[in-house]
């Protein structure tokens, strides 16, 4: 079993990296064959990631989301599938390139973190673990798509504003399409993020008898949630869109990353991964 898990992990790395290379070739050369190859490889990578997580679940006996390695692989998995589900309904030119790069970066982080399986802390032994952590990380998946869209928006907007059309002008979709993408991913991500916080607090009340403890991770999740709440609210009331929405998507994503890692390293607390 461990050999199979390890083999799957290597295949995930290989497929994702190859997908990224294919997408980058498409991005630079605008060669359709490279794009089709990239799409196929990304789908393959998504399937392999699912298999890897399943294998690890069987091996560990609990949802593999408790160590840093597992959380990041889960993050990459949810980004991949959020993209693939998105891709199934909408086409946004060259979006895949940015997402593929992000997935590879996440997988690189997972590669650098400790990979052995750690036994589950007694406090985490609950059916709430997959629900709470899973839902939260699915939210991260969608919000990371909003981040990619925001980045693309800023790159294109800068060229349009400066009136020097160059590399990105012909390669990125319209500003409107990118803004729509931001809106969709934000809405989907926000729903899951809210669910993640609600399930977490229900679990906390069962495990520790209090809904909210102001543990650093909880605080930062709330900050992240509030950031996205402001975005959604402003978008639908006064029309925060375009550049401001793109910048906010990037700030929100930074806040997610900090919640995921920074808190654990800098602030500690109940959510710290088992050591």
């Amino acid at each position: 079993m461990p050999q199979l898990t390890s083999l799957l992990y290597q295949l995930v790395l290989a497929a994702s990296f190859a997908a990224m290379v294919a997408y980058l070739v498409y991005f630079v050369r605008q060669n359709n064959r490279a794009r089709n190859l990239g799409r196929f490889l990304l789908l393959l990578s998504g399937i392999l990631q699912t298999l890897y997580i399943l294998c690890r679940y069987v091996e560990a006996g609990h949802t593999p989301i408790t160590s840093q390695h597992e959380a990041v692989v889960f993050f990459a998995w949810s980004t991949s599938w959020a993209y693939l589900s998105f891709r199934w309904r909408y086409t946004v030119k060259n979006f895949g390139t940015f997402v593929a790069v992000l997935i590879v970066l996440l997988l690189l982080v997972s590669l650098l973190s400790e990979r052995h399986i750690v036994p589950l802390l007694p406090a985490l032994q609950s059916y709430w673990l997959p629900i709470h952590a899973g839902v939260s990380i699915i939210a991260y998946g969608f919000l990371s798509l909003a981040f990619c869209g925001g980045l693309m928006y800023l790159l294109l907007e800068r060229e349009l504003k400066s009136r020097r059309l160059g590399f990105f002008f012909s390669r990125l979709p319209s500003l409107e399409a990118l803004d729509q993408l931001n809106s969709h991913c934000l809405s989907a991500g926000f729903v899951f993020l809210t669910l993640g916080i609600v399930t977490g607090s229900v679990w906390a009340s069962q495990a520790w008898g209090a809904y909210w403890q102001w543990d650093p991770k909880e605080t930062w999740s709330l900050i992240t949630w509030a950031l996205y709440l402001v975005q959604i609210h402003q978008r639908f009331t006064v029309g925060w869109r375009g550049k401001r929405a793109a910048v906010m998507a990037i700030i929100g994503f930074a806040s997610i990353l900090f919640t995921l890692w920074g808190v654990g390293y800098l602030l500690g607390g109940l959510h710290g991964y088992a050591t």
Partner: protein
Amino acid sequence: MPPERILLLGVNHKTTPVAVREKLALSAGYPEPLTTLKGIAGVRESYLLSTCNRVELLLVVEPGEEVEGRLIAFLFGDRFPAEDYRRYLFLHSGRDAVHHLFMVATSLDSMVVGEAQILGQLKEAYRFASRFGCTGPLLNKLLHKAFSVAKRVRTETAIGSSAVSISYAAVQLAKKIFGSLADKKVLLIGAGEMAELAAEHLVGQGVGGVVVANRTLSRAVDLARRFNGRAVSFEELVTQLAEVDIIISSTGASEIILFRDQVKPVMRARMNRPLFFIDIAVPRDLDPQLLEIDNVYLYDIDDLSNVVESNRAERDREATKAARIVDEETLKFQRWYEGLAVTPTIQELKTKIDAIGRAELERTLPRLPELTEAELQALEKMVAAIGAKVLHDPLMFLKSASCAGRDNSDLKVTTVRELFGLTDGQEPAAPAAPAAGDGECRHGD
């Protein structure tokens, strides 16, 4: 090489001034000239293309016939003295004709490289030619090839995506900002000719509505009627900004007519939906500081010219790529065409029969271990003789055709090739043509 020739002759915008072209253009449509063309002695297959920029004849002519004179007479009639048409006419044959046809189909020969219209015109002309029975096996093949080359160029290069004009650049930018233009509105400030042209282009791209603001209202009303739009007075300008998305300004005003502080409050009312200002007036109409507002884009005439320039550079790069594809496809066609020739077909036929005989011998001989050397040789001789006898009639059939110089040697070659399942020489990977490959490309040139 098959004895008949592919011939292409005509006039186009490069060789011939419009005054001459318009006299040649076939105003009455295709049917009549096609019928005449079909009747010209020595013409086996024909195809005629007539657009505002070119009149071209593509033909397959009988071997040894001097048809050029008749064709020139057909094209020019007695409208011009002989020394004139020599100056205007171009005439290609064989490989050059194929190359020229592909250049036309891919729009590389057009006035505006990258335009998409020419392919449609080519196809329409083909529909006529085939309906009137003018095209035959060779031109059918050649024209279909031309269509597929054009398609290949469209998909493999970005040649069609960068047309070069100010109006086009404006449309291109609007699309990059708004995505679809279907529900967007255009406001024309001033009723200049350039603005009109740009608006026309935008309407052609499906813009939802046009509003015209002009100092003299009557002119505004006229222009608005042309675009099925609405005229407003100059004083309503700022209130209109809440409704429209694209603003084209071209007034003769000597000062700026729209300032940043007038536009900024509008953005709130618009819920920050983007505004795209195009200032084609000189001196400028719009405050350059508009750019400082979020979701506002401003291009003046110089900016648009820069976009046009970069489009031109891009298009030239793509045209080089497209020309390479045309060369490649010309070569492929030539190879297929030469594959029709009699001699290689005879060669291939012999090789194939030989190979069958040898393969069967190799299968059978191991099962007859007690054969003596003499018996073995007799057997081999017999197999070779069967092969030669089988081949005798098809070879006679092929050779008789080419010796007699009759007009259908390519048909006979095609028949024999199909009958014996010889691969078409057109694919570079075809096993029957081992010499095919990139090395040959250089020889061909």
